[in-house]
């Protein structure tokens, strides 16, 4: 009956959360690399690179320098190639900046010849702006395409900041 008796974090009471899950035919190591490598990350994240040294307690910045700031935060837990917990402060508009920090947890679990990737975006304000977490389905779909075919998606959003520079 229980689908994930052992899996991952338990949600806090009163948390507003969004949960996204995808199966990708790859190894946990390759998936971890695609999440933490700045250039690979940009290929499926609207062209936006995420920069960090990925040490526990370090910070990260996501954006296209001189063009747009997307997000920043702290890497609370870094456990390659299984688990990454980050605070997330959206920066792309005044509206989303007002939401303050939330939390994003990445969980990688090998299943046969594939991985189950779960992204939990929680510690959101009740009634939080949907833009904060609305990009995840497109990002995860692009990540799957990249790892399984080596190609980048060409949907409008996936190309948004590609090729952009100051």
């Amino acid at each position, binding site marked *: 009956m229980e689908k994930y008796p052992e899996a991952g974090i338990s949600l806090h009471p009163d948390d507003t959360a969004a949960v996204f*899950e995808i199966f990708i035919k790859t190894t946990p190591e390759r998936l971890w690399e695609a999440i933490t490598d700045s250039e690979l990350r940009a290929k499926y994240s609207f062209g936006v690179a995420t920069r960090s040294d990925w040490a526990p307690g370090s910070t990260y910045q996501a954006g296209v320098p001189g063009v747009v700031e997307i997000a920043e935060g702290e890497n609370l837990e870094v456990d390659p190639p299984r688990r990454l917990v980050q605070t997330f402060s959206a920066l792309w508009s005044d509206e989303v900046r007002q939401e303050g920090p939330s939390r994003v947890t990445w969980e990688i679990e090998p299943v046969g010849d594939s991985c189950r990737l779960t992204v939990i975006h929680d510690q959101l304000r009740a009634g939080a702006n949907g833009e904060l977490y609305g990009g995840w389905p497109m990002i995860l779909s692009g990540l799957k395409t990249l790892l399984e075919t080596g190609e980048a998606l060409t949907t409008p959003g996936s190309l948004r900041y590609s090729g952009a520079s100051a």
Partner: protein
Amino acid sequence: MDEVFKALADPTRRALLDLLFEQDGQTLTALESRLPMTRFGVMKHLRVLEEANLVVARRRGREKLHFLNPVPIRLIHDRWVSKYAAPWASTLMGLKRELEEEDHGEVPRGRDQPASG
């Protein structure tokens, strides 16, 4: 992908997704109270949705919460709709380029652009 279409091919299961779309992260008891159906019936439908990965369950304390996972529907979109959306993307990207590089005469073709750079 078969499982996704099978899961969606039922009005009760679509109603369950509607309820989660309206308010994400609900218990079986909360969902059951909104549908003219037994607890067992709702459980069965939720299981089909979970197997299709359209619903993901997570624990919060002693509760099991159900979340709408829109990713499989996004994959369907990207498989068939992306082709039709691409010309819009290339137009927008072309416009963006032109605005950013006014001295540059070439209009880029969106689909052939590198994905990053």
